[in-house]
């Protein structure tokens, strides 16, 4: 199934005041899930990753069924080949940076990899994200940017086949963010690893988005190329900035 989309999802879920209903497919290598805070974007990612079981729905990655409520299929989070990076990186506070990055290599995709291969993989990942000097540091001693570098290295170490980014760079200053995104793009180059990137920042969505899924109040309102889907938002922004559209 080489022509299967990266991801197909059809989800219905109620949680608290939020009623989520979404149906979409990912064919672009980089898609931005754009919408206001509280619209249910994070919940949607958690469902895709397998952290939440929705009331109903189906999720397929590369044609492989990861979840099908009606068919009673539920692949556990660690077996989905999905990397997930959250806004606040949940590094294990009792493990040093190397052990954090290597954690995912002990099971799942890294199964069977011997010790030396794992250590080499950890070295490679730290180098890719310019974190090789942090190897023996504890997470509690890292800065925000360093934490995200390590978290990114940890999420990518087991070679996931889909990467979910939940506003992971929201708390970082622009130059730092661009450095880390640059490292990430460097890693993605030459790899077939589609990314679903959650953002509520219009500038970010227009800048990075090859494809955009517009999301509000628990549902998808539009999907397509960034300039098309976000044309109205862009016009309003320009008006506010005083630039003639």
């Amino acid at each position, binding site marked *: 199934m080489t022509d299967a989309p990266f991801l197909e999802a059809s989800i219905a879920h109620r949680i608290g005041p939020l009623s989520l209903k979404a149906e979409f497919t990912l064919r672009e290598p980089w898609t931005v899930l754009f919408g206001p805070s509280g619209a249910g974007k994070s919940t949607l990612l958690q469902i895709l990753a397998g952290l939440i079981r929705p009331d109903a729905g189906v999720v397929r990655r590369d044609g492989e069924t990861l979840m099908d409520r009606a068919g009673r299929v539920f692949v556990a989070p660690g077996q989905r080949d999905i990397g997930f990076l959250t806004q606040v990186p*949940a590094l294990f506070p009792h493990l040093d940076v190397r052990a954090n990055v290597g954690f995912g290599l002990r099971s799942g995709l890294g199964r069977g990899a011997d010790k030396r291969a794992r250590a080499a993989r950890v070295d490679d990942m730290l180098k890719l994200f310019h974190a090789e000097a942090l190897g023996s540091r504890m997470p509690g001693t890292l800065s925000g940017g360093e934490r995200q570098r390590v978290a990114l290295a940890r999420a990518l170490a087991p070679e996931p086949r889909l990467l979910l980014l939940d506003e992971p760079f929201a708390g970082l200053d622009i130059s730092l963010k661009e450095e880390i995104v640059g490292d990430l793009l460097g890693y993605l180059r030459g790899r077939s690893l589609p990314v679903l990137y959650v953002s509520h920042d219009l500038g970010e969505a227009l800048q990075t988005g090859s494809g955009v899924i517009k999301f509000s109040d628990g549902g998808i309102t539009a999907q397509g190329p960034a300039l098309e889907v976000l044309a109205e938002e862009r016009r309003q922004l320009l008006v506010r900035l005083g630039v003639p559209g």
Partner: protein
Amino acid sequence: MNVQDLLVTLRLATVTTVTLMVLALPLARWIALVRLGRGGRGRAGYGLKGGPGIFASVVEALVALPLVLPPTVLGFYLLVFLGPRTAPGRFLAAFVGHPLAFSFSGLVVGSVIYSFPFAVQPLVAGFSSVDTELLDAAALLGAGRWRTFVEVVLPLSKRSILTAAVLAFTHTVGEFGVVLMIGGDFPGRTRTLSISIYDEVQNFAYADASRTGLLLLGFSFTALLLIYWRSAKGAVDERAG
């Protein structure tokens, strides 16, 4: 007080604490997961909806029962159920080879039940305080429940585990009602220090009672000091980290 009573006390507290930790660790983990709404079977447990349900509440109430029940009540029931008057008592007696009532093994059974909440509750508190995002991170990286428990939850609950062990031990050292009811007062077998101080006072041997009392007081204070000092130090370390 004599050395024999001290040895019986230490032996009872040690055996009870080890037994308690073996039983309490998995139970506390289960209660903590149920409270998080993740008590389902195997991989199916992620993000289940709905509350813990009546079964979990019954288990928690049973675990906490020894906190409020008069020890003599517990001791009485154990005496009846472990003695030769009932079928379970006779079965146990046949299994162990001697009646459990008025024996050291009977004391262990009674102490384990009596000190159960002191081991389980700190563990539940410790396990529940581990960030759910860390549990999610472990699951996303392919760790199953067992590996997450051993490599993430346990190391992050070290202080609670120490607290549970120290409380279980000291509480067993200090128990009186259950020991007297189920153990009787047999020197070298079931007479612990808390019983011997009682005997000493009955015999007007106040000097002996005072020595026993001081020993128990000093021991209990030191044990609690260890817990509070460790947790104060831990809190400072965390802030510094």
